[in-house]
């Protein structure tokens, strides 16, 4: 039935189109070719002008209408330090290209209109003008040079690794079909070694349990970062390519199986601060479920999100993880609440190659459990120093570093 209907519709379309064609052909025969051509010049050149005006206006008006979703405007300001520089570069490019866009579109349709064929009017014979051509080669060259210089400056800043004395938070993200595993280094500040051959249901990252650095590593179900502190994310993938994309932080880098990569960025707004900014915009004051007055407003339920930006299979669009940016002390508190994956899920089971053997962390285990109550102050005083020292000794060579 559906197929029949489709064919009927198609047949109808064919007949209508052919009839229109024949009628116009006939009308042309009656009026004479030249007349028809002049008429066409008259109408189509005007249509071009109408199109140009509507198009340019449409672009400008729609850009203003959607500016709240554009980089660096409205509620979607960058939530990271480098993101601000990136947005500036975007705006600078928008400025130059915007001018060229409007001017050339206007000139194109204006010339087409002004120099439309009219009876008795002849075209000029102008084949070239060297001076003019040099000018319009030089101008784009200069503009491009400016954009290249600013662009590469920004790029190099963004791609800087952390300095030797800098404090930073390190974590690791592993993409798989279809989700993410976040790993934090734990108290020793060192991410333990991995061997993909040891990956299994109980050891999703293939951590080598003989390596003591693995014993305090945390697996978390969200990414939590302290505000205004550099974060270095190490990226890998377990099966196919994935891409670590944090739209609000202007962060994107592929996760490549077998080739570790990293990205350094500094979150500059806590989730709470970002929500506050959003609350000023009417489109975020609506309820999440418009029919339910008790549901939270959109800005209240806002969260930074991690998405996958490299096609990885049928579940590509569902690789979400929440990112929370908090004050430093809240971060410490959260961290101390997490417990080591090894101690929680592996220690003492049949999957533990060190079963029955003494390990360093055994004595600390209790302390870790009590941390929640002790609160954040203590954790704060303890950790940063150790964190950094340990990091330097273990620099995993990466494609990004040479």
């Amino acid at each position: 039935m559906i197929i029949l209907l489709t064919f009927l519709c198609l047949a109808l379309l064919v007949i209508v189109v052919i009839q229109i064609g024949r009628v116009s052909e006939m009308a042309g025969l009656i009026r004479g070719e030249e007349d028809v051509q002049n008429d066409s010049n008259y109408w189509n050149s005007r249509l071009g002008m109408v199109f140009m005006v509507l198009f340019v206006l449409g672009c400008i008006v729609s850009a203003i209408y959607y500016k709240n979703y554009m980089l660096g405007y409205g509620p979607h300001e960058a939530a990271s330090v480098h993101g601000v520089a990136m947005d500036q570069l975007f705006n600078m490019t928008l400025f130059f290209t915007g001018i060229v866009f409007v001017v050339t579109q206007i000139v194109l349709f204006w010339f087409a209109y002004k120099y439309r064929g009219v009876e008795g009017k002849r075209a000029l014979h102008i084949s070239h003008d060297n001076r003019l051509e040099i000018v319009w080669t030089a101008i784009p060259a200069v503009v491009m040079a400016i954009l290249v210089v600013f662009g590469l400056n920004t790029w190099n800043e963004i791609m800087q690794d952390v300095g030797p004395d800098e404090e930073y938070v390190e974590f690791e993200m592993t993409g798989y079909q279809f989700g993410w595993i976040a790993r934090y280094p734990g108290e020793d500040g060192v991410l333990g070694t991995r061997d993909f051959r040891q990956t299994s249901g109980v050891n999703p990252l293939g951590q080598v349990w003989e390596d003591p650095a693995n014993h305090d590593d945390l697996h978390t179900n969200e990414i939590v970062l302290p505000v205004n502190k550099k974060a270095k994310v190490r990226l890998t993938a377990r099966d196919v390519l994935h891409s670590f994309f944090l739209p609000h932080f202007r962060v994107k880098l592929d996760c490549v199986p077998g080739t570790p990569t990293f990205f350094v960025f500094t979150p500059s707004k806590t989730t709470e601060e970002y929500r506050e900014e959003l609350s000023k915009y009417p489109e975020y004051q609506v309820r999440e479920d418009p029919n339910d007055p008790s549901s939270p407003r959109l800005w209240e339920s806002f969260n930074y999100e991690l998405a996958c930006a490299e096609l990885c299979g049928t579940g590509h669009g569902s690789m979400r993880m929440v990112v929370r940016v908090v004050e430093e002390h809240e971060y410490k508190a959260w961290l101390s609440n997490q417990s080591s994956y090894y101690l929680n899920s592996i220690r003492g089971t049949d999957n533990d190659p060190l079963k029955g053997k003494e390990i360093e962390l055994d004595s600390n285990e209790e302390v870790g459990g009590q941390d929640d109550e002790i609160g954040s102050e203590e954790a704060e005083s303890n950790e940063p120093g150790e964190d950094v020292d340990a990091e330097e000794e273990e620099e995993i060579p990466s494609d990004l570093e040479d």
Partner: protein
Amino acid sequence: MAQTQVAVKDATDQLIEKYGFDDHFHDHHDGDKYQTNFITHYIFSMDHKMIAKQFLTTGIFWAIIGGLLSLIFRLQLGFPEENMAWLKPFLGKWVVLNDAGIGSISPEFYYAMVTMHGTILVFFVLTAGLSGTFANLLIPLQIGARDMASPFLNMLSYWFFFLAGLVLFFSLFLSTGAFSGGWVAYPPLSALPQASSGSGAGMTMWLLSLTLFVVSVLLGGINYVTTILNLRTRGLSMWRLPLTIWALLVTAILGLLSFPVLVSGFLLLFFDRSVGTSFYLSEIFIGGQALDHVGGSPILYQHLFWFLGHPEVYIIILPAMGIVSEVLAIHSRKPIFGYKAMVFSILAIGFLSFLVWAHHMFVSGINPYMAMIFVLFTLIIAVPSAVKVFNWLATLYGGSIRFNSANLYAIGFVSMFISGGLTGIFLGNSAIDIQLHDTYFVVAHFHIVMGVAAFFGMFAGVYHWYPKMYGRFMNEFLGKIHFWVTLVGAYLIFWPMHYLGIAGVPRRYYSFDSFETFSHFSGMNQFITVSAILVFVAQLVFVINFFYSIWYGKKMKVKNPYGATSLEWTTPIKTGHGNWPGKIPTVHRWAYDYSKGDRDFIPQIEPLSEEEKENMASH
């Protein structure tokens, strides 16, 4: 009017008779024997004009298929909540019904459609359909040759293309589905059948199909280059060539240099898939199993792919640029502005296209220092592109512009090329690309600049040279309806995608429900889908017009209906084998003597007048 045109016709024949040279082509009848029966004339033809028509009609077939596939996935994106059960008679098991009888397009099928749409449009329509058609049609006709240097290779070129199409078409009906890893086919997704159901038999057929396709491109390309360099008629120096020929020459060279690299990449991928090598695979745990592969890098594939992939976009756009230059000049009745600058910019774009491939890979994990050189060359490419745009605008200046469908499409091309080219400046700057990479901004950019713009160039060419191909005109009124709906509709589809991309919405998502950040745009997605349907229907108008006009279009009554200078319009209305019935014309001037002195145009076959010679000498 009719009187003067008859006079022109006579003059053309007289000029060829007087100045042409006799290559005794028609003394030997072996040249004509190819065309003795239906099969040798219409199927295994070795006549370049027939092969051009074969490429064009096959291209149209694939464009319809590719367009339909895009409508299917646009339906999913625009109306994810709607009941798609009505598609079940067409798509069968790929429409999944839930318990309530609500049908939805399965994700496997969605990704297969996305992948096939890209593959078909990029390779089968805009490479084979565009440069295959116009290189075959125009090269011999515009350079004054009897046919291609090797008509036999030319025939093979088409049939390898046909075979490639056959294989890909068949793969659409596999029970495991067509390949669904994106048209770029990045491993490991494309290398491991465990990773996606389309990466099994679907991917094998995809690889086979594209390898056959590359054979077709190489056979065609070597022929085009040889023909242009060796078979130009007397007097036709390189600096007298129409810009179409320059563009097609550089296109063919790009293809010859870059497609073999793609095949080498495919070969390694084939080894990884079938022989157990590890060129692209390392440290993979999939399907509950750690694979043996170690030491390879998926990034290597990306280098090999984009070493073709970037020249490929110029393989697509250069012929369109050449066609537009020619069509704009003829219908503005003006010489193309800055001919030499146009040639040099084609050469510069061709050269630079080999130095920018890694701008597709800024965030793929390559060394950030390497990215810098690619930013530099990518933004440099904007300069010759800008020169071309300014020269097209200057060509319109002071013209006497004829608004027919061909020229409207040429003007539309310039508009599209500006819009799409400028967004390339954002993406070429690696720092901005971090955010915009693989978002809808990229989709908008490349669809406008190489999808729609190349289509516009193709339409300009088809409307313009249709009479040369079929001896009849396409209907102008329908052509204009087609143009205006397509121009407006294409912008309505792709302009909003910039906003989606700037908002961070990633491409190749089956649905946006999982993310709060990406879920605000259902209205816009619906709008885009409705526009896409509108534009598709407008293309049906073109298709009907095209096929109807082959048999019933307005007849071409004069040899040179547009008053064009180039050689193809000196052949008889029904151009037979060998193109010119008697002598081959010789050339005495460049291809753009329009509105010179008191003449509307001076054909290339006309010798310089005494006055012109004096002017030349004084320069």
